[in-house]
């Protein structure tokens, strides 16, 4: 899946973590988990992301990305590193 901006991106400063480039540093604004094509949908994906520490206000940084289509990404969430596919990271709104 290629990354593309979605309608819910209201402000120029807010974007989806799944679209962010490597080296991006920001803060989580919200989780909006209704992503087409994600392995889990809606609440379950949101729960899963919460369990891995993707909470509002957490500091995120994209440390690494895979060789094929820049996927998956390794994200520093506060003080731990989580590997996640860009598709699921689309649920995370960051600024």
């Amino acid at each position, binding site marked *: 899946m290629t990354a593309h901006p979605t309608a819910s991106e209201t402000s120029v400063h807010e974007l989806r973590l799944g679209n962010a480039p490597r080296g991006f540093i920001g803060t989580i604004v919200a989780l909006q988990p209704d992503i087409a094509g994600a392995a889990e949908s809606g609440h*379950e994906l949101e729960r899963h992301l*919460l369990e891995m520490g993707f909470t509002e206000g957490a500091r995120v940084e994209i440390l690494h990305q895979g060789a094929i289509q820049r996927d998956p990404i390794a994200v520093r969430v506060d003080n731990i590193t989580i*590997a996640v596919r860009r598709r699921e990271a689309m649920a995370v709104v960051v600024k």
Partner: protein
Amino acid sequence: MTHTDVTTERFHLALVGAPNSGKTSLFNALTGSRQKVANYAGVTVERKAGAFVTPAGRQVTLLDLPGTYSLRGRSPDEEITRDVVLGKRPGEAAPDLVLCIADATNLRLTLRLILELKRTGRPLLVVLNMFDIAQRRGVSIDVDAMSAALGVPVITSIAVKKAGVEELRHRTDEFATNMPAVTAGDGWTPLGLSEMKTLQREADRIIRETVTMPSKPDTLTTRVDAVVLHPVAGLVILALILFVMFQAVFSWAQPLMELLSDSFGALGTLVAQVLPEGIIQSFLQNGLIAGVGSVLVFLPQIIIIFLFILLLEDFGYMARAAFLMDRVMGGAGLHGRAFIPLLSSFACAIPGIMATRVIDNRRDRLTTILIAPLMTCSARIPVYTLIISAFIPAETVWGWVNLQGLVMFGLYIAGIGSALAASFVIKFFMWRDYQPAPFMLELPDYKLPRLKSIAIGVYTRAKMFLQRAGTTILSMMILIWFLASFPQAPAGAEGPAINYSLAAIIGHALEPFFAPLGFNWQITVALIPGMAAREVAVGALGTVYAIEGGKEAADAIGQALASKWSLATALSFLAWFIFAPQCASTLAVIRRETGSTKWMVVTFLYMFALAYVASLITYNIAKAAGLG
């Protein structure tokens, strides 16, 4: 403290913790080699139980529950953890005390889990593991304040240090002597989203109040990852690690394997010399000793593969390998973690299938188990080389490519290609309703492996292989020996004795079924002892064509085959061996690892069907091309 009844009643402890919290090291330190690894009934989830005795002489059973970040029960593993903690797992005693292991260097996710566990009402003791590493990194934790804030006793531990383990044993005694009445598990409901957020906020608040983080994060992991997770350098390093691993499996294991197989051969010969010729001699030599030998011969490979896997896992590299390979594997519907087990299967499907334990998700694991036997294992090499050297001319094509090598390469590619295709088909047809587990994986900080813990891990795997797979493999070997030996050849009969056996009768009976593949009855007969291990088919072909000698006679067998088989038959035979499920040991391990006969039968049938169709197509195309 009274010593009257402490030894009579078993005390049940359960270990709960997030993945990478050092749970297994602590489990190993507490129980040593007193562990039993099995499967939970009906599921492919590993049940690890151990035992130890407290200073007061109390017998304690310790259950190492699958790692989890929550009690959500998203996978069968996590369901087990949840059900055991709630006391709702049939056949499993409700734990008297839950030890929650928290990585002291990484508390954020575990503290939320602890708060969630607290809500179950089950008595809880928090163990801050790897406290030494945390201190060295400059993390300072006010343990008393944390204990007060959580409302749960907290102790610190260094999994490998004796003192920490002793204190844990001591605390178990203390707890058990004034054990509270427990009403846990009733009325528990899964957390809602807002409750989860509340708990995480509370966890974050407790961390702010009781933990002082260093100003600098762990720079070593960051620096190593800059290279190891680099899109190009990372893949090169992964390839290098795998190269060393396979060198080890093929070349380090080789002398040991030869030593084992030679020793068993010598033992067999000795038995043959000591005992008079007859059924007992044949049973001991060809049934029992050869059977035990054929099981034991895999042991060096299994030990080496698990040594590597456990080392890589403990270093924290496994998660990185999964990260690097996720997209490549994902194309075929496989999980990133399936990579190592499938590569191991090139050596032998048995350690490969056992290595699928690194895949948490049950369906991802089953898919990997089902396709692992399609990877070209080393036992196929003798069959391939025999047929190729007998039938494929050693010509050079396109100026520089050796034709024999090209065919060999083609056979490997056919194996890999069919494995990927099978995975795709399995996902598409069998599990359409199934939502694959998303790839969400913590990349833990690098840590030095604890050698004692690794040793216990390898020992447990080796023991498990010998005990469980050993019994099944051995009984199949004896069955095959029986088929190939009875009834015995009448006195003065001509030709090899196997021609008069049940194997030959079955071979003749099956001949019409295999005739469309270009197989004659000799091939069909050879396939039966070939069930023991694929390379045995070579020897069996030698036997049915009445050629004396063992490995040295391979050239002679090749010549005999070249004069008796058509090229179409030979190609069809090769195609058969790409897919053929004829390895009793692999089937036994599949049964053992999936905990069900069903998956063993499924594997056998689908591989058999693939082999039949592939051979049928190959034979007919070759015949049409005038090679019949």
